């Protein structure tokens, strides 16, 4: 499931409900991204996430479908916020559930890598010296590229 929302969310609570009550799941992996109070040595007062409504949801759903086609997943959750947030607030949560640990861990890393290079979000930082749009990191492209090289590898 994919959720794109302005409202804050509580990662612990989301994970408590994720795959709850099921007894066929052996492994849950998760990743949570937070607003940090510094970036490249500068203090961050707040962060605003702009996005492309409509395309964001479609792109995240495509990425989820790609993960489900590569790994045998019992469940999958992606929550991404937009709007203004303060340091310490969660921006994104990805959770995956599978019978086995490699599928859960690998698909969670895959979802984050693809999200970082494909989901249409842009970060605007507020610092004491003014507002800056965050530059994309080349390392994110490299991280996403490693999955392309591997191709589908369905783990049993």
């Amino acid at each position, binding site marked *: 499931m994919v959720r794109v929302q302005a409202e804050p969310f509580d990662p612990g609570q989301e994970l408590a409900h994720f795959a709850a009550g099921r007894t066929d799941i052996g492994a849950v992996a998760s990743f949570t991204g937070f607003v940090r109070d510094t970036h490249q040595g500068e203090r961050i007062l707040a962060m605003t996430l702009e996005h492309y409504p409509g395309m964001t949801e479609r*792109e995240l759903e495509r990425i989820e479908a790609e993960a489900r086609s590569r790994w045998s997943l019992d469940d999958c959750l992606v929550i991404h916020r937009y709007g203004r947030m303060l340091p310490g607030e969660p921006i994104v949560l990805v959770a995956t559930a599978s019978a086995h640990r490699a599928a859960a861990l690998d698909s969670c890393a895959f979802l*984050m890598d693809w999200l970082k290079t494909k989901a249409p979000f842009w970060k605007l930082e507020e610092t004491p010296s003014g507002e800056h749009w965050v*530059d994309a990191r080349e390392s994110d492209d490299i991280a996403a590229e490693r999955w392309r090289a591997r191709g589908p590898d369905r783990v049993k």
Partner: protein
Amino acid sequence: MRIRYFAWLKQRTGCAEEELDLPAEIQTVADLMAYLGERHPRFAEAAQGQGVVRCAVDQTHAEAAARLEGAREVAFFPPVTGG
């Protein structure tokens, strides 16, 4: 056709979106970028950088060679930085 701009590209064009009737010779994303560069010189400047301006046609990522036939909405934006 509706053209949309995101993040700092909005500051380059001075608008978040515009409705344009395109000349018939504008057939690809690359054609459109050149055309928009004439309207917005600071967009043209950004478009010269390798990989600095990305594009989506009807909300799907598209390369410079992608054709625009039938498209209703084309968006331009810098590389994404979410997550």
